[in-house]
């Protein structure tokens, strides 16, 4: 124990002397870790609790399940309780029904005698158990599998189109000299100023006119021509030497081949960064899908979740589980690709 403490307390430089800023650092980092991960972990823990347990206060940290027993003469399994007897003794009884502050209970070994017990005298017998039904039920019975598929479709398609169109535009803007190039560049930079929330009404009308309303393509197309993507790829392609392109032209490669066989593979690191960003953006999109999609079959996960959470009788046990499902791809990106993103942001300041 002392070794652990001394390991944590040890610091580099300054000859191991402590300063008040070290304490602040330590507190900030530990507190930050709890605050940043805690809420999501709490959500995951809660998502494995049954509806009855979710309604409890104070809540338990881990998910428990009530143990149930099959009692002769009763079709459904009955919940098992520990009941305090008069002389400090306890016995295990199963509850048949509750009447006011009394519970009608039965001893599983003696199914014929019914007992009346004050509900204050009994405590449920529980064991740690996962309410997996929270996950299975919405995916099977509700539309969440459909939402999941829609989200995957939107994310994959939008990312592919983004990579293709943005890289083509970036190639033209970085490797060709033509009249109006600066104007095009300026136009693209200027559209950085036009976030979606500013053009909601006319964009809706355009999507309506093109017949894309209520279709996933209506969600995909308006988002794919990202100015940030073009900008990021162009900056990267500028670093590819023109001599490579000239050499390929000598060998009678067509311009399209130069783009496809030379520039794209060389721009792979930048494409990877854009791909990761695009996946996270499109997976997380909410406002635009909310407006375009009004039929339940076309909902993405985010819109579906919001709809279920907005119902009068919020079924938290399902919502929590589906929120966890929604988090999974993003957590995977976080675990495996976090380094790419953080360097991407630090380098280009994009999001």
């Amino acid at each position, binding site marked *: 124990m002392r070794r652990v403490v001394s390991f944590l307390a040890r610091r580099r430089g300054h000859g191991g002397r402590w300063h008040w800023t070290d304490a*602040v650092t330590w507190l900030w980092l530990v507190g*930050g870790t709890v605050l940043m991960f805690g809420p999501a972990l709490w959500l995951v823990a809660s998502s494995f609790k049954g509806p009855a347990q979710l309604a409890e*206060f104070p809540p338990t940290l881990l998910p428990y399940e009530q143990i149930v027993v099959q009692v002769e003469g009763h079709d459904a399994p009955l919940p098992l309780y520990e009941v305090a007897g008069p002389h400090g003794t306890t016995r295990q009884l199963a509850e048949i029904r509750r009447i006011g502050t009394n519970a009608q209970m039965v001893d599983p070994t003696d199914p014929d005698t019914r007992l009346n017990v004050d509900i204050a005298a009994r405590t449920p017998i529980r064991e740690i158990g996962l309410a997996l039904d929270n996950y299975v039920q919405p995916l099977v019975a509700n539309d969440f599998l459909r939402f999941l598929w829609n989200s995957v479709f939107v994310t994959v398609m939008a990312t592919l189109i983004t990579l293709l169109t943005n890289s083509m535009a970036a190639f033209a803007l970085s490797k060709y000299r033509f009249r109006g190039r600066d104007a095009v560049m300026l136009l693209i930079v200027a559209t950085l100023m036009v976030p979606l929330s500013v053009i*909601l009404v006319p964009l809706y009308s355009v999507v*309506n006119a093109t017949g894309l309303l209520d279709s996933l393509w209506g969600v995909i197309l308006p988002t794919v*021509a990202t100015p940030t993507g073009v900008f990021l790829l162009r900056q990267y392609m500028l670093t590819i030497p023109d001599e490579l392109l000239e050499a390929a032209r000598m060998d009678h490669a067509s311009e399209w081949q130069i783009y496809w066989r030379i520039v794209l593979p060389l721009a792979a690191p930048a494409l990877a960064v854009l791909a990761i960003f695009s996946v996270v953006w499109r997976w*997380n999109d909410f*406002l635009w899908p909310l407006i375009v999609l009004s039929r339940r079959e076309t909902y993405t996960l985010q819109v579906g979740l919001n709809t279920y959470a907005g119902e009068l009788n919020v079924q938290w046990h399902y919502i929590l589980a589906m929120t966890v499902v929604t988090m999974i791809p*993003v957590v995977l990106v976080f675990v495996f690709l976090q380094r790419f993103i953080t360097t991407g942001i630090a380098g280009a300041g994009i999001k």
Partner: protein
Amino acid sequence: MAALPAKLGVVVTAPLVLLARAVDPPLRWWQRMAGQGGMAAVFLLPNLAIFGVFVLFPLALNFVYSTTAGTDILLQGRSFVGGAQYARLLECRDYLDPLTCREDTFWTAAANTLVFVVLQVTMMVVVSTITALILNREIRARGFFRAVFFFPVLLSPVVVGLIWRWILQRQGLLNLVMVSLGLEPEVWLNDRTYAFAATIGVSVWAHMGFYTLILLAGLQAIPKDLYEAAEMDGTRPARVFWRITLPLLGPNLAVVLVLALIRGVQIFDEVYVLTGGGPGTSTLYLTQYIYEVGFASVLRNPGLAAAASILMGLVLVVLTLCQLWLSRRGEAKGAK
């Protein structure tokens, strides 16, 4: 094991490769016909076409919509009213009291957004600066802690909203903490002040990691010899901070400030899921106002929504110009 992703990659990209081969001959022909300039047009066309249809054209159309009235979303069914929508938005008896305005929800939303942005951006800059300073110290496992603060940035706003709704609800984690500290539990999101504070806290929680990264990059770009020189001179740490760290971090701080402002003005997703704008209109912000007037309410008014979005857009244009100016200045400094 490593071969599997590679094989999978080949399978996925196979149709794309075929497609790329198929378009080569026609493009070769076009290249002979139109030359390099013609090829530039081909490469630009898809992106610019999508841009044009889904960004530039709507942008122009927005002005048209803002001068029309009616509930019809199609332009044919709408009547021209000139500046009436703007007049309606801006008509107030007393500009300091939103309730005296004709379109009082717009002014409430604007006032809420203003207070929200001021408080949220201040908090965001302070918190992310402290975090960046701490991450820049000689600490163990810096990569891990940097990732810790970045984690919520990736979460979807809907997930962020739901996580915190779950924590702030009547039987939630926060009330558990309150009770165990011997305090009274609260229904946090039913209280106007607490709900407003929650939208600020949650959005800072969700986005601070992003700004921390920018500031950390700025801190790491400060030349180490400056600090060494200060140490040689025996300068006090506080003085080093005010005289070296803060001035050299200035450009990054400015970028963070403007970016946070731009995003703060447009806040919608997480707040909409967390509070839905309530209780009452206490957390109603501009984007939600636009969304509700334009799409969600029974008596929708796309013209009014378009006018409001143009007013919001003007604010954003000013802020974005500030950002471009700042980042260009930063680049120029970096080049020197």
